[in-house]
């Protein structure tokens, strides 16, 4: 028996050594993932596209409309639950708010969640809730928490080695609250390697993956050749198989490969047929959806496309909510529906999860939770004497809508319910952020208790590893 033990121990070590050797020569994440997969659940997806409705998207004005009350000067705000008419969707008895007809028509390909409940963090702040949504941890944290995209990049690695595993489209960091945004757009303790590859402007996507402006392919290749010759001739070459030298060389080669690869053409939206381009072209968000589709086709792993967060812009409506939401819906409705249709047609939707979400919802009267008094962030009169007060301007956390499509998510399914009277809060199947994360991870085959030791403490994908997937959402 003892002999047997020793032999097995030997094999165990030998395989560790092999792993280590492989790891030195190949992206570590690939090797890690191939082993981790053994313990994880079976996967139904391998790509995620997150469509981020930044700034708080009111559920009653979008995917969970309530009684419509048209504007009249002098009306009571409390009477207004929705400022838009309801329109039917392809699903029986399910209505969306006017302006989302196209998405309504593809709901047979996905799940509508009407019961997301955001965390209770007192004072409602976009940046804290966004941090929480993307990392699953409430800020501040003593350990830098990784973005969901970084966890996925770390666990599964790039799907196609020349496409960065985590791509973030549409967010600029020159806007207000940029620092708070940076705090969660990070791989945290997992290390820069798994951080986001930023494409703030999708129409400039190509810039990020082509040789510097003004450098043609020939010169780019010659420069790389020169680099290799200089390395080989440098007297410091005597360092041999130094890991730093190797990791430097390897990453430079990867960059060179990416910039030279046929896949990099996917970043170039100008090669998209005009007709299709026009459907997507509702602005930066729409083009972001187009870029996400093209990258998915080439083997992206995690892509986030945002309507972009900037205080008091986009979904962050502190006034003129009704008027501004018309615009917002125009921006998202066509491109999102087209994205689903295109992915479905090409077969990619089978293995790609598309998630639409926002940090919280909005209401005209209630700030935060219905039963909890928090500081009101928006001054909203009880009697509306100006159209600018007509809209959902306060932050509401107790009932928010989400959409999920593809990659093993149920089709034509509705989960959860909110009340039809104010407060329009979740009354059935509440779902929290750690459940959202775990559902996505489960679909990807990432085990629910995935964790790393940081400063000797286990750090899980969801706090204390407690998050549980929602089986009802999956096929």
């Amino acid at each position, binding site marked *: *028996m003892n002999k047997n033990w020793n032999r097995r121990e030997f094999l165990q070590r030998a395989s560790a050594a092999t792993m280590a050797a492989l790891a030195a020569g190949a992206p570590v994440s690939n090797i890690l993932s191939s082993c981790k997969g053994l313990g994880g659940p079976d996967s139904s997806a391998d790509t995620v596209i997150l469509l981020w409705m930044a700034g708080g998207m009111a559920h009653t004005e979008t995917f969970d409309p309530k009684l419509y009350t048209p504007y009249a000067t002098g009306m009571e705000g409390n009477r207004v639950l929705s400022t838009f008419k309801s329109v039917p969707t392809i699903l029986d008895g399910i209505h969306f708010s006017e302006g989302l007809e196209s998405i309504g028509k593809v709901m047979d390909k996905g799940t509508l969640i009407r019961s997301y409940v955001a965390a209770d963090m007192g004072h409602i702040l976009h940046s804290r809730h966004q941090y929480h949504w993307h990392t699953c941890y409430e800020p501040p944290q003593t350990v830098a928490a990784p973005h969901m995209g970084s966890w996925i990049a770390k666990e599964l690695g790039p799907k196609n080695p020349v496409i960065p595993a985590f791509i973030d489209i549409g967010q600029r960091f020159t806007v207000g609250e940029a*620092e708070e945004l940076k705090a969660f757009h*990070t791989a945290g303790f997992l290390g820069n390697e798994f951080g986001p590859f930023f494409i703030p402007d999708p129409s400039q996507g190509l810039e990020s993956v082509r040789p*510097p402006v003004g450098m043609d392919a020939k010169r780019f290749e010659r420069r790389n050749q*020169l*680099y290799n010759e200089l390395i080989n*001739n*440098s007297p*410091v070459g005597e360092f041999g198989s130094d890991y730093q030298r190797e990791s430097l060389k390897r*990453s430079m080669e990867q960059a060179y490969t990416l910039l030279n690869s046929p896949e990099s053409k996917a970043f170039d939206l100008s090669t998209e047929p005009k007709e299709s381009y026009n459907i997507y072209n509702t602005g930066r968000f729409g083009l972001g959806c187009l870029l996400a589709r093209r990258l998915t086709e080439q083997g992206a792993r995690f892509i986030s496309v945002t309507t972009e967060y900037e205080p008091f812009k986009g979904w962050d409506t502190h006034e003129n909510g009704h008027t501004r939401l018309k615009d917002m819906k125009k921006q998202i409705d066509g491109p999102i529906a087209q994205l689903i249709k295109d992915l479905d047609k090409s077969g990619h939707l089978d293995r790609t999860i598309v998630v639409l979400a926002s940090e919280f919802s909005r209401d005209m009267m209630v700030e935060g939770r219905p039963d909890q008094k928090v500081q009101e962030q928006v001054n909203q009169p009880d009697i509306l004497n100006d159209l600018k007060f007509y809209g959902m301007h306060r932050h509401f956390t107790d009932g928010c809508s989400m959409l999920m499509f593809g990659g093993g998510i149920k089709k034509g399914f509705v989960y959860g319910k909110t009340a039809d009277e104010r407060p329009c809060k979740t009354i059935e199947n509440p779902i929290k952020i750690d459940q959202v994360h775990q559902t996505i991870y489960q679909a990807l085959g990432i085990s629910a208790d995935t964790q790393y030791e940081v400063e000797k403490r286990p750090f899980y994908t969801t706090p204390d590893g407690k998050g549980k997937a929602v089986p009802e959402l999956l096929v």
Partner: protein
Amino acid sequence: MVHFPISLLCVALLLEIIDWKKKSDKLRAAISILIWIGTISAVVAVGLGWLLASEGEYGGDSLEIHRWAGITTMLLASLALICLQRNKLPLYRTLLIITVFGVSFAGHYGAMLTHGDDYLSSVLPFNQTPQLAASETPDFLLANNGQTLTPKQVEDLNIEVRTILAHNCYSCHGEAKTKGDLRLDSKEAMMKGGKDGVVVIPNHADKSELIRRISLPAGHKEAMPTKGKRLTEKEITILRYWIEKGAQWPEGKMKSIYRVAALEPRTPAIPAATGDLTKPIDLFVNNYFQKNKLAWTKVVDDRIYIRRVYLDIIGLLPPPEKIDAFVQDSRPDKREILARELLNRNDDYAQHWMSFWNDVLRNDYSGTGYITGGRFDITKWLYTSLQVNKPYNWFVKELISPGKGSEGFIKGIKWRGTINSSQRTEMQAAQNVSQVFLGLNLKCASCHDSFISDWKLEQSYAFANIFADTLLEINRCDKPTGKMAGRKILFPELGEISVDASTEKRLRQLADFLVQPKDGRLYRTVVNRIWAQLLGRGIVEPVDMMDNAPWSEDLLDWLASDFAANGYDMKKLIFTIVTSKTYQLPSTSVKEAGDIMANNYKFTGMVRRRLSAEQFSDAISTSFNPMYADSAIVIKLLTEDIKKKLPFARAGFVKNDPFLTALGRPNRETVSTSRTSQANLLQALELTNGEKFTETLKRGAKEWRIKYPTSDLLVTALYRNALGRAPMPKELVVAKKILGANPSEESIQDLVWAIALIPEFQLIY
């Protein structure tokens, strides 16, 4: 051993495929032998396996799967062999393929049986467990049957037992999680048992539920632990023995099962000078070398030395003329002179070390909290403190018991709204002070009692309360407990805090207590940090876990006591290190990043490092063209004359940007005490087509083309500036191939780009 030959079947299949592809049968004879050996072994393994299983050591689903998969495999292999003998090739090939699948399948379950179901993942990185004290104590004598144990033996045995329990059981049966209402982390709790009754019956190991559960085979639904590694036979034997001997748990203060470093300072005797070794560091390292059978190697040449000390002390590349002068200098003590000169360049020194301390004290020029008044920067204070080389004890005092300029560190970052109680600013202060100054991790214990050290929740709160105007209610895992903790320093030996004094006074007390000479831990922590900065790896690693074992305790203790004896003079400490022969040893490297941190690390010389983001940027600025415009300097946060003091816009004095982030400058939301040296794709992309670097190359090339009209002049100047040497003939040839006789702007850009990315430029070696 019987299982190994079975895998020859896999080799046989491989050879078979080769033959198949080549449509030959050259390998047939070999394949035939392999299949014979494999099949016979499979028969033997099945026979022996059956015997072993009937002895009852294993059980459960894995066993059954292994049993039947093994038998099937054996039968398949035999069939394949028969077909081969009868020359039925297609059938034989199919059978062989299926057999190989069977081997993998049976093998996998066999391995789960003996190693537990995490046998693959448990050897992967990040699966380390905390360093425990017990591993250093000698193996306990398990063979003294019948004799009573001495008190010392009782204690040692108990420590072994607690170590095993801590390692394997506490995470589910401790203070934080108490599955089945069972806790195993104290005598009372353990003897009380759990929801299903008593688990330990003293003197009766066989009747003890604990032993039964840990002895069950993996996969059995009652087996413990349910997750993670199985206990080893040795561990089970120790637990059994302990119960047989009465399950004794000594009364009184328990000796820690974790390695705990001494608090008080120690001044080890300096070994006698020997040969050309006279400096204490070298003599301690010499002892270490002798003990580990390592030999001294020749110190590095002048060119390497000057590059190292320039980068390590002031963060800049040495100018070529300084290198020439240094090489030609014939004074025997020229290295000491150089080190002293560099240390005396107060501003250059401060400008380099600023980045290190910004990381450590999580001070940045932009970041969360500044706009809302939830965070304060300490930039001006920090720069001045480094510039005047403030003694370290004062430096620490001013951070803990701060004035306006330095209060940002303990004030922490305040986010608006309700936050987790373990993240309150007072708790942040407690965590950051203990991490940064004492190399001690309170983060676990600020939520619940730690299960990786002896720190308790109550101690964290007592420490945090020193920073709090009103006492904080203890929250366990963010739930109020109704209890209060008082105000206490983590090491009561250092002094007693006046509970009712004002916060200001308490902080003054705390600062005074912490910087006392008798707080050896404070000084060991900082000398170890500086050592790690200069030598690429601490004497203790990770540098924030000062309870871990140093590779040379004498060296660490001596450095700390010498530091104290020299008035806590940082520059003196750096001087002592960089003028030692030890620092001047040739640099070393490892096969992969993780090896540097490994427990069995052996020091043989400085570990090669990559230039930091700031060093790289500054190196481009000095050797080619400035990376940043003067307007990028964060003037507002600094003293007015800073522009005069900065030789150019050094990267340590601009706001973080995508370029610096990609090269490893951390987002300073949390304390960050080391940077990774490994390159990655995002970084490479930033350097390959990032705007910042590309623009610098373009600007610089314009100027250089005018300044150096011929390729020879240009290449020579570039090599001298960037690498501190003239190009070698073959390098000149390569460079000229791209530059031609008269360099164009584009070709200059490309050459500079290539040189900036070769390891010789990127590394401190």
